[in-house]
Structure formats: C-alpha cells, structure tokens
C-alpha cells in the first residue's frame, strides 16, 4: 500500500469543530483505499460549489473543479461524458445543490449519470453568516428570517428517489466510520449516487446533541426494495421530531447516461471528406 500526500499549500479556514473535517478525513481514507483497489488517484476529479463545503477541493491534492454556487452537477456530468474513465465526485452544500442548483440534481438523477454527490447538509448558510436553507426546519430563525421561516423543508432523499437516483444514503459528521463505508459504496456504485451528510455547523446551527439523540443505523433493511427505501426515507422529514435513520436507503441498477457517448471522432482527413460529402448532398 502506497501512501499519498493528499495535502496542499492551502491554509484550512474551517471553524474548529466543523463537521466538514469528518467528511474530508473520511473521504481521504476512501481515496487511499480506492487506490489500493486499483482506482488510481489520477483518475479522480472532485467538483465543488461555493460555500464552506467547497473549500474541500483546495485542501485535497487531487484534480478538481471549483465551480459556482449551485453548479456542481453540470460540470461533473460533462467531465464524466467527456472522459467516462474518470471517477467524478461532487461535493456540494444544501444551499448549493438543494437550493440554487436543485434542477441539476433532479436531472442528473433522472439521467442516472455515473457520478457521486456528497452533500454537506448543515441546514444553514454558513459562509454568508447564518440564513435558512431548503432543509432548515419550519420556523428556523436566521438572519433573513428573524421571525422564523414560514416554509417547511424539503426531504432531499425523497426527491432524489422519485427523480430516479439509483443509490441513496445518509450519514452524519459524528459518524466517520459509517461515512467511510457509505462514501466508498457510493463511489463504486455504477450510476447516480447521493450521500446526504448531516454535517454540523458549530457556529450557526450546532445540532450535534440533537442528532446524537435521534440517529440510528439501518439494519435488516433491503435497499433494493423501493417501498422499504421510501418508507425509511420518510421516517424523518427534516422537520418534525423523529428517529433519524442512517446508512444506505436505496440501491438499484439501470443504464447510465454517459454510456450513450462512446463515439470516437474520426481523424482530420476523414472529417474533411465527410464535410465534402455533406456539401455534395446539399447540391
């Protein structure tokens, strides 16, 4: 087993105790173990959006595409279509992919394109200093909603299931061993995979205690059963008090989008004769 230096020159600016550390550390371990199993680190591309989560690409010395807010998915899809041999992993926030870029997530799931999305779901905007997100509970008091939000949160896993995602899982930033396991499974899954990580923002929405009291790991659950998966996904709606299941909810197989683009461009002389041919047909 060869060890990589995955560090960069960038100075880490996450708050002490930030849930992002657990995600990064779990992911680095997974990278190492993937490499041991024959997936070279050179073939990995990380894509991130804008927000605290996104800094992860500055901190890991791997190919990366530091995108715009809400725009993790489209470049990740394009990189996969352009070079299907690459492992493309998107890191995104809840404001980032469940808010501004939610349409991209829905379409990527619909296409079942073979990319993995890891969502740092802290249920608050951190980098813009504390506003509500699409998964904040009803009544959340943020800086843009001082009297509390008037809209209930979405359940992103339910939305992803109905959109056609073929791998869905949940973890928390207080459970690094589980994160390692489900990240690896998600990355090795052929098709669109998404891991919703209940990542805690210690500064603006510290939910460590809340989650610790409610989470449990799924057992005896059949992830290939759609109805079971739906029932487990609906057990907690990101709003009302309930037990919060963790682990792999759903796993299925269907053709993935990038397989439709395996054409090779002919060489220049052949292209030229094809162009002449096209023009001849137009006479």
């Amino acid at each position, binding site marked *: 087993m060869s060890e990589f230096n995955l560090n*960069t*020159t*960038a100075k880490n600016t996450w708050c002490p105790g930030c849930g992002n550390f657990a995600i990064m550390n779990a992911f680095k371990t997974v990278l190492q173990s993937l490499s041991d199993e024959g997936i*070279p680190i*050179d*073939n990995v591309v990380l894509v991130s959006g*804008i927000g605290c989560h996104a*800094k992860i*690409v*500055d901190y890991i*010395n*791997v*190919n*990366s*595409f*530091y*995108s*715009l807010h809400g*725009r993790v*998915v*489209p*470049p*990740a*899809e*394009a*990189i996969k*279509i*352009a*070079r299907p041999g*690459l492992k493309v992993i998107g890191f995104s926030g809840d404001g980032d992919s469940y808010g501004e870029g939610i*349409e*991209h997530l*829905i*379409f990527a799931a619909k296409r079942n394109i073979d990319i993995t999305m890891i969502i740092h779901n802290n249920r608050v905007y951190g980098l813009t200093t504390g506003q509500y997100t699409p998964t904040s509970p009803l009544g959340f008091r943020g800086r843009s909603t001082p009297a509390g939000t008037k809209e209930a949160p979405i359940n992103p896993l339910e939305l992803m299931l109905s959109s056609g995602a073929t791998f869905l899982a949940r973890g928390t930033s207080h459970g690094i061993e589980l994160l390692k396991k489900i990240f690896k499974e998600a990355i090795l899954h052929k098709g669109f995979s998404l891991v919703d990580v209940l990542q805690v923002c210690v500064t603006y929405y510290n939910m460590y205690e809340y989650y610790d009291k409610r989470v449990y790991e799924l057992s005896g659950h059949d992830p290939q059963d759609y109805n079971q998966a739906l029932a487990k996904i609906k057990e907690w709606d990101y709003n009302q008090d309930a037990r919060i299941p963790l682990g792999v909810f759903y796993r299925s197989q269907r053709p993935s989008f990038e397989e439709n*683009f395996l*054409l*090779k*461009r*002919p060489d*220049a002389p052949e*292209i*030229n004769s*094809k*162009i*002449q041919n*096209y*023009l*001849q047909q*137009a*006479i």
Partner: protein
Amino acid sequence: MKDFSVLIAGKAGFGIDKAGSIIASILNQLGLRIYIYRDYPSLIRGGHTFSIIRASEKRISAHKDKVDFVLALDQETVILHKQRLNKKGKLIYDSSAVKSEGLGIGISNIIKEENASEIMRNTCIIGSFCKIAGINWEILDKVFRKNIDRELDSNLKIARRGFDAAQQEGNIEAIRRAPMPLITGNEAIGLGLVNAGLKAYIAYPMTPSSGILHFMASNAENFGLKVVHPESEISVMLMSLGFAYAGEKCVVGTSGGGFCLMTEGLSFSGMAELPAVIVLGQRPGPSTGLPTYTSQTELKFALSAGQGEFTRFIVAPADPEDAYFWAGTALNLAWKYRIPSIILSDKTMAEGIYNFDTGSADKPGEENPASWQAGLVKKANSYEHDPAGITTEDPDITKKMQDMRLAKEKSLAKELEGCSCVKVYGNKNSKNALLCWGSNKGVCVEAAEKLNLRAVHASVIWPLPVKQLKKSLKGAGRIISVENNATAQFAGLCNCAGIKISKNILKYDGRPFSVEELERLVKKEIK
C-alpha cells in the same frame, strides 16, 4: 442580367419551407445562384409564412421586395403579396381555393381527384410553376427524387398534374456551370466547427440557433460528436466548461435570452481560463421579443456580458463562407488563448439559405487542445487563484493573475492583424462608404455596387480591428453605418475608436433590409 424572385406563401403547416427549398434546388440545378429569405411567425400551425427564393447570375445574399412569381395556396397570400409583383410578374394560385386574377390552377380539385393529402398542394403548385416558368420536367423529377423521401411516387404524380394543367409563359435558360451546395448559415457554422476539431455540442433549443443543435444531433454519428441537450442554458454553459476542463473542444449555441443565463459561466471561463465558444444568434428583444425575426442588438451585450474584466473574442460572420472560416477560427482562438469566443449570428444569417462555395471558403485548420494528462493534478477555480489553482486573496497574486489574463487581449489583437477581419467591396475609391457588420454584408455590397459606393464589412468585432477599419475607410469623407438595431451599437464602438460615423441607417422592425429598401435609404443620404 438574369435576376428574379419567387415568393411562396401560406399557413404554417402547409409545408412552405420545404416547398421553398425544393424550388431553390430546382433553380440551383439551372446554374443560377440562390438566396432564400424565410419569414415565419412563432407558432406551429396557422399564421402566415412565406419564403422568397431569389435566383441570379451572380452570387447574392439578400432578398428583394419585388418578385416575379407569387405562388398562392391561400387567399391571404394574394392579399398580402400581390403588390410585390413586378409588372410582368405571374401570380400562380389554387383556383379551387383562392379568388384572384392571374394563372389559376385547380389544385385542390387535383388533390381530391388523386385522393392525395392536403399538404401535397405545394407539390402541385411547384409543378405548375415549373411549366409556367419554362423549366424542364426532368429537372423537377431529379430534384424530387433527391429531396423527397416520403411518398415520392405520389408527389411526382401530383406535381405532374400541376405541370400539365399549366401553360408555359416564360423560358428560364440554364447557365452552363456546376450548381453549388445550398446551406443555411447555421449549417455553415456547424461545418466550420466540425472542421476545427469539435468534439461536443451542447444547447438548449432557442431560435435562431436551434438549427445548429439539430444539425449536430442528426450528424453526431457521422462526425463523432457528443451532443447534449440539458435542462437549461445555465447547465449548458457549465457543462461546456466541464468539457473544456476534460480537454474536449466544445461549443454551445443560444439566443439573447439563453445567453443571459450563460453569463455566470462566461465569466467563470474568463477567470478559470477554460476555453468556451458561444454561438449567440440574435433576434429582436428586449426579453422574448420577436422570436422568429432578426436583429443585431446583442453586440454591446456580448462585449460586456459577465462580471469582472477578462479577454474575449467576438466575431460576426456575414454569410456561410465567412461563418465556416470564423466559427472554426473562433474555436481555435478560444483554445489557443484559453478564453471565451462569441460567434454573433442573427436570424437572417442563421436561417437564411445561401449557396456555399467550397473553393472560396477559407479553412480555419485545427488547433489541438492539450488533452487530459494523467499524473498532473489539474485544478480549475472560479475564485481568484494562484498558478496551481489554489484559492487566494493575496493582493500581489490577484494583480499578477489579472494582468496575465488581460494581457491575452494584446496578443490576440496582434494575431488578428494577420487575418482579414475587415473587407472592402464596391468602388474602393468612393468618398461615400457604407459600413456594416454581420449579415448586412450582402445587402450593403449590392447597394454599394449599384450606387458606385464603397462598402466596408467587419467580421471581427472584438478586439476591434481599428487598424484594418481605418485602412479600409481611408479617404471616405462620408461614412454611413448600416445596422439592424435602434441605437447604432457598432457605430458607437467605431466612434470611440476615432472613426467618425456621419450617418446611421437603422432598421429594427425584425426584418432584414431588402436590396431596394437600402438603396432608397442610401440614395437619400448621398444626394
């Protein structure tokens, strides 16, 4: 000189477009040079749509208001277009559906007798037109066999009935020379891109650029292209940057409204130095505007779209040959300098049908991109970043990186000095010059030749080819700028560069200038 026009019109759904291109193919076979102007509303059935097919001894790329044949399948065509007929012009109409003077053919009756479908009325009127104009049946037969793949026999039968029901009136002689391909501006853009090494095309449908998407999709296998139609123009643009990151030459196409959504990605291209090429087909705005009509209103938008300051290349091709060369060149320059390129087309050029002279079209060649290299950590970043791609807020690195990105504009401008960015036509010594850009070349050159003036056409918009413009306009005391917008956008750019525009001729009703219209307007200005 041989120069005449045929107008065919009817409701959308009558197959007017197809009929127009068949007539054009027939005239093309006679060695005539062709240009088709297509006018249609934004709907699927009903409304009024027409095509003017102009045929001439010499190359043309503009339409005339006056026509020599009107082919009328409904009453509205007679009402709207009868006044376009020249003195000796012929109005050919379906006498079993339309009341008019002229040459009536009982087309609907023929269709009934033959138990054929309603849409074949256009086939029938083409038959009658050929007989009346004195075009041999063999030519019609040849063109039908090549262009019609559904119910060919039945179409030929109906056309023959139309042919036999008419009396010959004219005699269009063939010119002994090879016919040239007939293509749209959109196809020419597509072919130029393919020639320059295109690997992927991504677009969300929007008139007038959808034609490129359709061209790419239907030829994807032939040219080895990856063609994607994603959920929005936002996704289109970001996907294009993903392709660029992965080392694959990629182009996107849209119109003004879609380009609005692409601007965040455009700016990202500037920051991350990821090559991008956008075909921006102009149509009248603001907002949804007139979706199926023409304008040149996005010049300033293309110039300043996207937050921040970064180098960009903007080119506005005149016609298919120009589009073939400049579309490929725009792709190559984007990759060479790692900048965004914008190809400004408009509905007139994009959807107009022109002869394409393979011989005279310059070939752009192929700039080979640095493709994906394993073993190197490649980091693209939308934040300000150091040369390794790591985010920075350091003032020195910020300035250094910004200077480096902006320095590209100088090198680009210098390289473009070696290209024909601006061309002169007509009387090159005339003190009166018509200045135009984009699709207005054809109509301006024709007007200038007729009135013995100089015509100067710019294909490259940015970096503004100041030296070439000044050289082309040397000695012109009176410069008349011709544009399809209300605020003289290109003239404004020239004025800033010290090229004084004396007068603007502006048209912004969604329609392109006709030859007669521009002549009339120019005459007033030169007295």
